């Protein structure tokens, strides 16, 4: 949390400053929508290592961070990119090869965990997962939980309802709060002080943002404070939540950014093939990420017609009629 002064910085600076090796980070978006991809690519480019990653349902960002070798522990509900990768490809390989420690929760549980962090309470209750392996089987060894002060001692706690059978409920699952060192979001609009506007579904971005010790916001458009304050009902995060504002057009590419651009089916289909083999993936990392110095250079390397084809139309907010096979 910072003062409401000017927080504009480059993405390189923001990642250098707020994302350390071994940091606990959380990323916004959902499967193929509004993933903070520019930030993800910069993290890979800066070769951050042993990150502890939190997400609910995330696809492209999780897979690239895992594939880029940045992540050693992952707490997640769902790793997939819709029809393009029902299970994230590099994630799957890493788990099957024992290179990634995973703790599984459900989507609502992860959402509640971020919400607990945002609310400043150690846990929130739900009825999800009773009698399942999500409740009964722990991914992280108990020894890890006990030795790491950044992890709660329990994956979750199943307990009796202290109010008897109030609300026809006998048992509840208490899920522990997440307090990430840093959360990274990509949003449609922000101003230099950190006032944030997200359009369309907010997923769990707001909860993830408020739960974190630090918040990096990359934005599609950098706008005047005055303009956002004319319609405060449409804004979600006040400046005092935000530490860094980075202006990154196409910052969610190849995932979608509602009202700006669609996901890129050409990229995602090709990624699926390239991620399938270790050698082709190494080549992908080199060609797409390491050989470009920043997101602008990455985007400049893409055919303009392709970007035009995924540009959102004003009526629907996505690219109507886009060929998506």
């Amino acid at each position, binding site marked *: 949390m910072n003062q409401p002064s000017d927080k504009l910085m480059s993405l390189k600076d923001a990642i250098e400053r707020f994302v350390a090796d071994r940091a606990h980070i959380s990323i916004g*978006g*959902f*499967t*193929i*929508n509004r993933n903070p991809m520019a930030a993800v690519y910069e993290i890979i480019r800066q070769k951050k290592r042993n990150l502890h990653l939190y997400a609910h*349902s995330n696809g492209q960002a999780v897979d690239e961070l895992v594939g880029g070798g940045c992540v050693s522990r992952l707490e*997640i*509900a*769902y*790793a*997939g990119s*819709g*029809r*393009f990768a*029902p*299970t*994230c490809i590099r994630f*799957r390989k890493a*788990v*099957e090869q*024992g290179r990634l420690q995973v703790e*599984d*929760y*459900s*989507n*609502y*549980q992860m*959402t*509640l965990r971020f919400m607990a962090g945002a609310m400043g309470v150690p846990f929130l209750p*739900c*009825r*999800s*997962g*009773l*009698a*399942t*392996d999500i409740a*009964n*089987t722990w*991914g992280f060894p108990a020894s890890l939980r006990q030795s790491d002060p950044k992890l709660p001692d329990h994956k979750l706690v199943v307990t009796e309802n202290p109010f008897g059978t109030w609300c026809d*409920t*006998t*048992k*509840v699952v208490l899920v522990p709060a997440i307090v990430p060192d840093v959360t990274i979001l990509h949003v449609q609009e922000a101003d230099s002080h950190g006032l944030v506007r997200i359009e369309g*579904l*907010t*997923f*769990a971005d707001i*909860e993830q943002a408020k739960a974190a010790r630090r918040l990096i916001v990359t934005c599609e458009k950098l706008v005047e404070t005055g303009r956002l304050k004319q319609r405060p009902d449409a804004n979600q995060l006040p400046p005092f939540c935000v530490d860094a504002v980075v202006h990154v057009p196409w910052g969610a590419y190849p995932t*979608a950014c*509602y009202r700006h651009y*669609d*996901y890129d089916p050409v990229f995602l289909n090709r990624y699926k093939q390239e991620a399938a083999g270790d050698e082709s993936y190494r080549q992908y990392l080199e060609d797409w990420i390491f050989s470009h110095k920043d997101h602008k250079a990455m985007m400049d390397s893409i055919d303009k017609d392709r970007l035009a084809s995924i540009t*959102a139309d004003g009526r*629907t*907010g*996505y690219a*109507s009629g886009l060929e*998506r*096979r």
Partner: protein
Amino acid sequence: MPDYTLKEMMAIAAAREIKDGDIVFCGTGISMLAAMAAKHISAPDSTIFFETGAIDSLLEEVPLAVADPRVMYYTAVNGSLADAFAFMQNRRTGAHVVGIMGAAQIDPYGNLNSTVIGDYHHPRVRFSGSGGACDVASFVDRTIIFMQQQKRKFVPRLDYLTSPGWLGGDDSRTAAGLAAGGPAAVITNMAVFRFDDKTRRMYLDAVYPGIDPRQVLDQMGFEVDTDRAQTFQPPTKRELEILRTECDPQRLILG
């Protein structure tokens, strides 16, 4: 009898489970098509809703993920995950929700695995994980499950229980503290299964035209009662037309 693919049959079978006024929790793929078809065919006052927080989306084009921007256009409310799951956990709204889901493994009581094959700590195959599946299965009173009819998918014991069905049968589900209702139907590429009102064990309810119950059993890792099996009423011309022209004209999901 019109020609139809198995995918079309499955979509229509699920669509028929949706009643007018239902709030339909959709996943991606065929479950979304089923919900769209129901709304166009027989349940115009049903509400399609996604765990991402989109409620009553128009779905002018088929979304390829529940976070596809296509779910955000012309909706009643664009909310958040927190909102969406709360609607299901809330007993008043939850009672109207029908959840449509799939999985990698199913057991005789409709419990589902969408997490791993093999040992959790050293999995042979890792899948996406629960997503909202465990939540919807825990909260709502009626779920419909899509499965491929394969022996390795219909297993006597799951490698990992991701989403609770009828647990061990009888009243074990409510005893565990879960919603009173549970899995209502399993729709595969060969048949439709339901669960006994008392024991809560799966039984064969209907086979698709031309399929013998024995063929279905051959594709299962456990026995089920086939005495109640009837022949499934195939998709009507109207159902197919709506599915093809209104729901997935690009055949992105129907293939």
